[in-house]
Every structure is written in C-alpha cells, then in structure tokens.
C-alpha cells in the first residue's frame, strides 16, 4: 500500500480528541491515550501509521509525529508513547509536563508511511529504544492474522526497556531483547541468514541502526523491497534566516528554534504536511531563487535535488545565506 497522498492540501485532516489516559512507563517514556471528543470510534488505521499531535504551548503551536502503538482492531482509542527528550525542541517535554487526563487536543488523521507487506511469508521486526512503538501495533495485527513474526528489540537498560515485560510475557519465543548495558547486541548477520524466502524486515530506531540494517541486508543479497524502515528526523535548531514567500507575498523570519514549516504556518500561510519528519514528501516546496546554502535533512529529495537547490522540505531543512525565495 502506498501512502502517496492524492493531493497536496494544507496540513492534514484533524480530529478533536480528549486525553483518556496518561501512563508513565519508566523514567523517560510515558504513554498517552486519546478518545474522540464526540465519543465515537476514531478512524481506522493500519499498523505502522502515525498521527501528528498538535500542542498549544503558551501560544506556540507544536506539531510532533508519533507512531500509533495501539491495536488497529480497536479504534475506541489511539495510544502513543512519548520519550522525553531533554535536549529536544520541547514537544516531548510539553507532553510529559503539561498533558493531563481530560485535556482536549487535536491530532491528525493517521497516515501510514511504514506499512506491513502482508504478502510476506514472515515478518522480522528490529527495534531500537522508542522505535518499538510501531511494532506494538504491527504485532497486534500479525497476531490477529496468525502470521509468522519475530521481534529483536535493543534497549539501553532493563529499567528503560519500554514494554519489554509485556512483550516477553505475551509472546515468549518470538521476542528477543538485547540490553546495551550488558553488552548484548543484535547478531544481525546471523539473524538475516537462513530466513525463509519471502521474509520482510522492518527497522525503526536511531539512524545508525537503520543504515546498518539496510547495508547488512543488502550485502546478504536481500532485495531492497524486503527491507522497510521508518525514520522521522526531528527539525534541528539553527541560525535564524529570512525567507520570501512569493505566492503569499510575505517575508518571514525563521527563528533559531523553529522549523521553516512552523515559521510559514505562524505567518498564517497554509502549507501541506503529513509527517513533519522529512519522510512523506508532502511538504515539498519549489525554490524560486536563492543565494546561500541549504541544510537538507530530509529522506525524500534525491541527491541531485539536494545539490541543485531546486526544492526544499521545510519540515526539517534549513538555509543559511543571503536570500531565499520560495513558491509558497
């Protein structure tokens, strides 16, 4: 299933929800559950989908994507798990500090950029840290379908092993946990070796882990189409810069701690997005003219496009230089 959106529209369709549960899981990770404000079922989604949560942080809008980890068969609620990032831009801190049961929030319709290939004879899931979340939903779906799967889950310490106990208890034999602090590592080559034809592997975790899985699988002769990954880049802070939006005839300033997309939205200009993590392609914007250098951080444009400066993905990428004009 391709997640290619048919038409670029401003933002994504929204759902009004109420926070129905806030469950701290360990020192860093808390689970949040949402129910529809009108009490009905939420839209159906497939395992691997994410939603963008809108936070109103003292007049500032923050929009962060999170994988939906709850069982796709149960649309009475959605659950996400948020890892607190003390160095991040504040979205996860806001969730941890400010969001309480009963709060009203807005989230976007789920979009799936990381879906299961259900034709696969077997699914192998590889998770690092908070990258476990999409697999929680995938495992629920595979269990229901009765499909073959196994999980290899690498965590820092036992105390930080989010959902390790629940997973190991429910699925002994299928769940393999590796603790960094005990110098345990996923033996990837062995694990890939001998998998039946038609196996698909999925990886979600830090960038290094994703690259490692792609490189190792391809060296072992796995077709690219059988290796799936999801990586949301977080927008990084950077030097403030100025942009002219040609269509809207506006000049805007992008602050140190906001993304170009956020600055465009703040100025009242509607801009399309789905993932806000450089992965979906929806926010792609044409560059009209520029004098300076781009800092491209997306996984969407190809190397040529990055080099020639014809396009930018404003959800994650920035610019340094004299002037930048966008077709927006």
């Amino acid at each position, binding site marked *: 299933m391709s997640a290619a959106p048919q038409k670029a529209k401003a933002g994504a369709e929204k759902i009004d929800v109420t926070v129905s549960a806030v469950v701290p899981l360990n020192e860093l990770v808390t689970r949040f559950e949402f129910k529809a404000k009108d009490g009905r079922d939420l839209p159906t989604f497939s395992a691997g989908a994410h939603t963008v949560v809108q936070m109103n942080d003292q007049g500032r809008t923050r929009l962060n994507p999170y994988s939906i980890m709850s069982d796709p068969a149960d649309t009475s609620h959605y659950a996400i798990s948020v890892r607190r990032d003390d160095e991040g831009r504040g979205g996860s801190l806001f969730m941890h500090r400010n969001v309480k049961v009963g709060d009203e929030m807005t989230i976007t319709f789920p979009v799936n950029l990381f879906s299961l290939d259900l034709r696969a004879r077997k699914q192998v899931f590889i998770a690092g840290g908070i990258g476990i979340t999409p697999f929680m939903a995938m495992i629920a779906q595979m269990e229901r379908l009765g499909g073959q799967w196994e999980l290899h889950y690498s965590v820092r310490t036992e105390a930080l092993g989010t959902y390790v106990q629940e997973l190991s208890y429910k699925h002994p034999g299928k769940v393999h946990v590796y603790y960094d602090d005990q110098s345990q590592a996923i033996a990837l080559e062995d694990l890939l070796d*001998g*998998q039946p*034809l*038609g196996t698909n592997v999925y990886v979600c975790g830090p960038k290094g882990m994703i690259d490692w899985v792609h490189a190792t699988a391809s060296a072992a*002769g796995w077709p690219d*189409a059988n290796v799936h990954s999801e990586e949301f880049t977080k927008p990084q802070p950077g030097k403030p810069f100025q942009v002219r939006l040609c269509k809207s005839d506006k000049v805007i300033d992008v602050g140190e701690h906001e993304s170009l997309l956020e600055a465009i939205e703040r100025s009242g200009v509607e801009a399309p997005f789905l993932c806000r993590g450089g992965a979906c392609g929806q926010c792609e914007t044409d560059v009209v003219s520029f004098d300076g250098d781009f800092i491209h951080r997306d996984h969407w444009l190809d190397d040529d496009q990055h080099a020639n400066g014809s396009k930018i993905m404003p959800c994650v990428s920035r610019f340094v230089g004299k002037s930048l004009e966008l077709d927006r």
Partner: protein
Amino acid sequence: MIADAEGAEAILELAAQDPDLMTKSHIIFIPKGTNYTQALRDLKPAQFYEGPSYEAAVQRIRHVLAEAKMGLQVYLTGTEGLMGQAQNEAMQAGIPHSAIQTEHRGSVARRMQCVHCKGITEDVITDPFVCSHCGLNLFVRDHYSRRLAAYQGVCIDAEDPGNVPEPQELYT
C-alpha cells in the same frame, strides 16, 4: 538459474565472466530440442537438473523455492514463456518482481492465452494464429498478464468469419 533452449548461452557467458558463481548455482534447464546440456554440466554447478518440459520442471522449481532462504538470487533466461512462468513462481514464493533478473534469449515466440476459451497456446510465432484449444483465429495483442505469464489473443474474424489476414511472422 532457470533456463530453456538458447538461455543456456546466457548462463555459459555468465560462468565465463565469473567461474566462482557456479559453485553456488543450481541450474534448472529445459533443452527444448537444443543440445547445451553437456556444456552446462561441464560448468560443474552445485546442482544441475534437466527437465523435458516446463510442466515437468515446475514441481522441481516450486520445491527449490519453498526450501530457499533469503539471499537467494533468481536468474531466468530463455524464452518469454519460460521467464514469465518461472517469474510467477518466484514472486509467489515471495521474491519481489524487481529483484528477479531476466534475460531473453532465443525464440521471440509468445505464450498466448485465448480470451474466449482461456486455453494457452505455447510458442506462437505468427500473427494471427489459430488457438490450439478452440480453433478460433486469434490476433496477438500486446496486452500481457503477469499472473498468467501470457499475452492475450483475441478473435480476429468474429464479425466476418473467415476474413482472416495473411499470418505475419512476429517481430518481422
């Protein structure tokens, strides 16, 4: 590696480029009247099987695919009919179509399905041709079904029975 007829030449060329390849290769070959068998055997592949026809070889192909592990590379060479049918088996075993290598060699004959009786006529080299099952005069369409590994043949004289153009050889 699955080959029929002149597809053997493609394998011989590959082996000449990279002799090590053969130590890991399993060749399934359908001669179709050619005599490449000894040359292929001389390459000393890890396994060699010769089948009298695709139908006879297909059980073997299925068995090999069912036992195969990820990392298996599939190389198909020879006629369109062979490549199409073997590709189907490989895809059903879970190899994405984009990861299957094919090289067409030898006859340009098409494997045709009659849209009227659904019968398959192998090795069609003229257009129009006569369906080997229902006897209708069919013309060769470029419409290809990956699932059937066959092109579509449609009755050419339905409105005016007997008005059939002179058969032309395909691709000439």
